[in-house]
């Protein structure tokens, strides 16, 4: 039930935040992609916040979606489903930490 509800909540968050993300990165500022051009954009606090929301909601939504697919075919028993859930939470947290670490140089980027 909670997983179902969070899947919907993250879905709505992703639609809104991803729309902003794609409009800014691909429609308004389409151009040469480099460490400097991306850094200038991400250096704005609002974009950093947006990226962290996207990262968190995206990882949850992606891995819970994957979990639902896997539970339909291979992880059908309660025991296996629980093991899968634990493994995916560990993978998700690892990706979140890695993703924030990956964003770090852009967050500290000095414009100009």
């Amino acid at each position, binding site marked *: 039930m909670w997983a179902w509800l969070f899947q*919907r909540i993250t*879905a*709505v968050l*992703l*639609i809104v935040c*991803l729309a902003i993300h*794609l409009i*800014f990165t*691909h*429609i*308004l*500022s*389409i*151009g*040469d*992609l*480099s*460490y*400097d*051009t*991306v*850094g*200038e*954009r991400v250096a704005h606090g609002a974009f950093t916040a947006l990226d962290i929301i996207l*990262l968190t909601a*995206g*990882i949850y939504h*992606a*891995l819970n*979606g*994957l979990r639902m*697919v896997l539970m339909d075919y291979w992880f059908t028993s309660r025991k296996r489903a629980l093991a899968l859930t634990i493994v995916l939470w560990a993978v998700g947290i690892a*990706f979140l930490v*890695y*993703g924030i*670490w*990956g*964003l*770090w*140089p*852009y967050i500290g980027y000095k414009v100009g």
Partner: protein
Amino acid sequence: MSAKPRETANVGAGLWKATGMWAWLLFRISGLILVFYLGAHIIIISTGQFGAGGSTFNNVMDFLEHPVAIVLDIALVVAVLYHALNGVRVILMDLGVGIKRHKVIFWSAMAVVVICFVIFAYVAFSYLANDVGPWSQALGVAS
């Protein structure tokens, strides 16, 4: 609508047959593609941590200008738009909105997919042709 009539309503309306079944299958396939893409995206962006002055990141970005990468980008846009708009339809069905008109809602969502795709493709191809986005200069937000 209470829970019980809602359950029977979506069976009676054929939510899981024909259009609804294909919508569900494509939703899963696009979802799995997006899971894979998210992992790749996080790893690619994290290359900013490696190489002096972002040199690794710049090399990856140059590599992604390959025509195959551009074709995959276009496929990605289709997967994102389909998954997002069909997701809106799924949420509407969950809320019990328009179950009896689910096919109309599905095709309306697909119309939004096509409109968004055309806008995206127009921006992408004019950038590829002119080296500048159609609206980036006018809006003063050129990267």
